[in-house]
């Protein structure tokens, strides 16, 4: 199967083929009418070439989309097969399956929980509750979503329950308010790593994340810390992808403003 780009015939080669097919040789037109006929023939050749170019471009685009789709589907299929094996093992109460399950997902659930609830003790409680809920429901899990997405959703709901116990007065931020334009315009992006990763800077960043409203913080943690896709994040949090993007955008700009104010002061001092 040909995998490289298909060579496009040049105008001259295509025209030559057409002329050879008609067994004619080029010569000066004998009359204005013959000249016009020749021009119209060249135009028809050019039109056919444009159609050919478009079909080639379209088929190349379709081919590349197909290759990418196949590789994405193969990757997803491999993940689903792997998850199916794991789920079957959990249903059979295989200790090895449980060990794999824990190793693969415990830190992720803990990390999401910590990001939402903000304390190690509560995050551990959430992780434990998540695994218990998941193991109780694993027999009924229908595999309509990825196992990780399902687990994250359980963890997020448990984290929200703890948060509501602790902070019942927190209200949802209004996503429709216009964001103010950024005001901290210090370019700290090129500061050396050791400055950006200093204990003080990390503490500023951690505090800034913790002070985000819960809805914004959850979107930011799912997308930028856990590295999940927009679609997965939206499923976990239980909002539309559009709403997820708005929250993520607000979270990023808010955090950037806080961190930029800190680094701006540091660079000015």
């Amino acid at each position: 199967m040909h995998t490289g780009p298909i060579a496009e015939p040049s105008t001259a080669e295509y025209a030559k083929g057409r002329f050879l097919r008609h067994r004619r040789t080029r010569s000066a037109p004998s009359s204005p009418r013959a000249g016009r006929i020749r021009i119209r023939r060249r135009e028809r050749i050019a039109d056919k070439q444009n159609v050919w170019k478009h079909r080639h471009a379209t088929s190349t685009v379709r081919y590349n989309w197909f290759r990418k789709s196949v590789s994405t589907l193969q990757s997803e299929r491999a993940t689903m097969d792997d998850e199916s094996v794991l789920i079957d093992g959990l249903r059979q109460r295989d200790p090895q399956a449980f060990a794999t399950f824990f190793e693969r997902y415990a830190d992720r659930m803990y990390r999401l929980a910590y990001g939402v609830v903000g304390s190690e003790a509560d995050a551990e409680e959430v992780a434990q509750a998540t695994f218990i809920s998941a193991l109780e429901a694993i027999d009924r899990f229908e595999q309509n979503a990825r196992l990780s997405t399902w687990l994250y959703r359980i963890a997020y709901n448990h984290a929200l329950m703890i948060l509501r116990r602790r902070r019942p007065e927190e209200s949802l931020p209004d996503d429709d308010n216009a964001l103010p334009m950024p005001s901290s315009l210090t370019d700290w992006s090129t500061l050396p790593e050791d400055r950006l990763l200093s204990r003080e800077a990390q503490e500023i960043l951690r505090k800034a994340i913790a002070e985000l409203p819960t809805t914004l913080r959850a979107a930011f943690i799912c997308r930028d810390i856990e590295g999940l896709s927009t679609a997965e994040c939206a499923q976990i949090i239980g909002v539309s992808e559009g709403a997820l993007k708005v929250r993520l955008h607000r979270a990023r700009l808010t955090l950037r403003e806080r961190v930029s104010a800190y680094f701006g002061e540091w660079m000015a001092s």
Partner: protein
Amino acid sequence: MTCEELIAHLSSYIDHEMDADLVAEVQEHIAHCRNCRVVLDTTQRLIVLVHDEGRRIIPAGQRDALFDRLQQAFLSRPPASEADTTV
């Protein structure tokens, strides 16, 4: 493209969720607008920082205890029968 429009589309640009025409407009704008370029660069840097440093794990001592508790709860449940599993 104005600065307000660029800021509104910033996340889409960073996440490569923007069509080619808008990407070209954004790139043309930041080539001439220092402020927007700073906002873009610092936002991208922030995301990298957070992704690299925010990957907390369960503290080692707590991890083992958590594993033991969960494993005990897991093994104490009977295996799923075929009637219970949902396809």
